[in-house]
């Protein structure tokens, strides 16, 4: 029997007739306490491609408390590529709460019927996406790294890491609409805003009295972000892994980072061993980063790490194992002992920069 014959013939799954009129690509514009999460703009950038492939409009969904801020957020969404924005405002929506937000977004979907709905995979986005998908009874794919439209069926092929990132899988929602997906911050590129773009705002009323909402927000304690590393937006990152052998050697990462004005990153084993803080962990269970330069020292490049830093423009890897997976996707590779190479690299950069400064 041929290989082909063994496989069952692929059955074509038709879209449920209830959803044939669902059109357009939606991006949920996440704002908490009037701050828009930048993942929303990254999603608009990606949404543009999907809307083009489908030949439909790209729409932003803005859900906020009352006030001028709502329209300002819509105006910004147009600059990042939205053609149209649905704006739902009510004072019960000032703070994020699961019940009113789920109701608001579900109402909008049922009234205006999008075929694709994307949210950021933030704490808010994941809380809301899971609830809305369950309420609508539709498919949701979390933490997508690639989104492609299958033009014939208008299905969204959503690719995501699975088994802790060991493999990738492509998932489709064939019978239901909207096809929902979340994407982690920094996985998609940030589009350039076009300040000349504008669009139409459709204001939709939301009536839910505060009395009917069971959960109350008593207080919001904002994080102290001073002195906190901001890896997702760092331009240069020097990251260390288990190959550095001891926590003392991890200091070599800091030394090089200092000369380059870089942030310090770390692999999961190193964070688990307590050599670096959790905020510095890069990868599947840590931060996703998109720096111009990423130097990985003593990191083998397991897929769990790779999914967090694959978006770097330039990757330099130092590893003693010539077969380490990191050399499969780094741009420059050095096979050698990171503990001796790092100080040499620090010195070389220092000397080069001093020379460049002198010659101006």
């Amino acid at each position, binding site marked *: 029997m041929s290989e082909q014959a063994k496989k069952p013939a692929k059955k074509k799954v038709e879209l449920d007739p209830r959803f044939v009129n669902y059109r357009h690509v939606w991006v949920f514009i996440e704002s*908490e306490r009037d701050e828009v999460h930048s993942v929303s703009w990254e999603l608009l950038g990606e949404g543009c491609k999907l809307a083009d492939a489908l030949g439909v409009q790209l729409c932003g969904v803005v859900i906020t408390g009352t006030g001028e801020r709502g329209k300002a957020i819509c105006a910004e969404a147009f600059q990042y590529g939205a053609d149209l924005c649905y704006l739902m405002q009510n004072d019960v929506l000032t703070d994020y709460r699961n019940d009113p937000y789920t109701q608001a977004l579900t109402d909008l979907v049922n009234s205006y019927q999008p075929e694709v709905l994307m949210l950021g995979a933030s704490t808010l986005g*994941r809380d809301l*996406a899971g609830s809305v998908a369950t309420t609508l009874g539709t498919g949701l794919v979390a933490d997508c790294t690639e989104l492609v439209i299958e033009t014939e069926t208008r299905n969204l092929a959503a690719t995501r890491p699975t088994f802790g990132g060991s493999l990738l899988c492509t998932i489709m929602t064939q019978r239901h609409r909207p096809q929902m997906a979340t994407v982690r911050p920094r996985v998609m590129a940030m589009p350039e805003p076009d300040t000349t773009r504008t669009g139409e705002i459709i204001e939709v009323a939301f009536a839910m009295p505060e009395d009917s909402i069971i959960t109350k927000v008593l207080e919001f304690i904002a*994080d102290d972000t001073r002195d906190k590393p901001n890896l997702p937006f760092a331009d240069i990152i020097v990251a260390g892994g288990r190959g550095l052998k001891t926590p003392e050697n991890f200091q070599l990462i800091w030394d090089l980072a200092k000369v380059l004005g870089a942030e310090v990153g770390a692999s999961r084993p190193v964070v688990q061993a307590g050599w670096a803080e959790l905020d510095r962990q890069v990868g599947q*269970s840590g931060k996703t980063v998109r720096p111009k330069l990423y130097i990985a020292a003593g990191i083998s490049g397991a897929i769990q790490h790779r999914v967090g830093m694959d978006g770097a423009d330039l990757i*330099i890897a130092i590893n003693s194992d010539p077969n380490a997976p990191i050399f499969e*996707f780094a741009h*420059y590779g050095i096979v050698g002992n990171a503990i001796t190479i790092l100080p040499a690299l620090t010195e*070389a950069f220092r000397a080069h920069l001093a020379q460049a400064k002198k010659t101006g």
Partner: protein
Amino acid sequence: MHSVVCIKQVPDSAQIRVHPVTNTIMRQGVPAIINPYDLFALEEALRLKDRFGGSVTVVTMGPPMAEAALRKCLSFGADDAILVSDRAFAGSDTLATSYALSATIRQIMENRPVDLIFTGKQTIDGDTAQVGPGIAKRLDFQLLTYVSKIVDLDRDKQEILVERRAEGGVQLLKTSTPCLITMLEGTNEMRFGDLDDLFRAARHDLKVWDRSSAGIDAVEMVGLKGSPTVVSKVFAPKPRSKRAEMIEVHDSEPHNLAVSLLARLFTQHPKLEQEIARRAG
């Protein structure tokens, strides 16, 4: 006080290897563990039991081998355990899984009211964080995700006060029980069960429920039929079209190596040189 804790048995993803030729997961020899995030949920439920009395029921949906994970939970101090297992569940996505688990919890509630449901924030194999919210919505329970601390619980008023990890800060939330809490990692430390618990766990008459015991009449709501998402392809990540440009180790002198790397880097990427100089300047 009655808490239900939903757990999942998962392959230890830190030890998963992909077969280099067939690109399939090599499960052989990979230990099955309790999803690490679920332990924070279980410990929190046990702490409430320490404080207020009552009991903790652990539930999992999975194959017969998942019994081992439930016995482990019993040995930590859980009072009761239910394995929901049926061939009809095979291929369930998160929507179908939350349907099956919510039906199971409804069955539990027939006999004894449930005050709180706990889950981990996500699993380490699926990483979706969707089943917890799904169960809450289906049972019409208030949903509290990423809870870092249970501040207070007033059993007479049926009120609970929690701290929830939000974007850019922490929300202090008050809501009514029953509710569903997904517990943030690192918020407590799992206890070791004592010897009595170990013996009790081994002897415990663990319940195994099939589809109908779990109260699921509609077979089309579970398994592949109840799953709107379909996995169309599984594959290993592609290497970049070009392997890394290797800086040759002409001699073992790290200094020469570093200089040759810099020379090549800055010749090929002059913009990067300016960027670094600007930052360092």
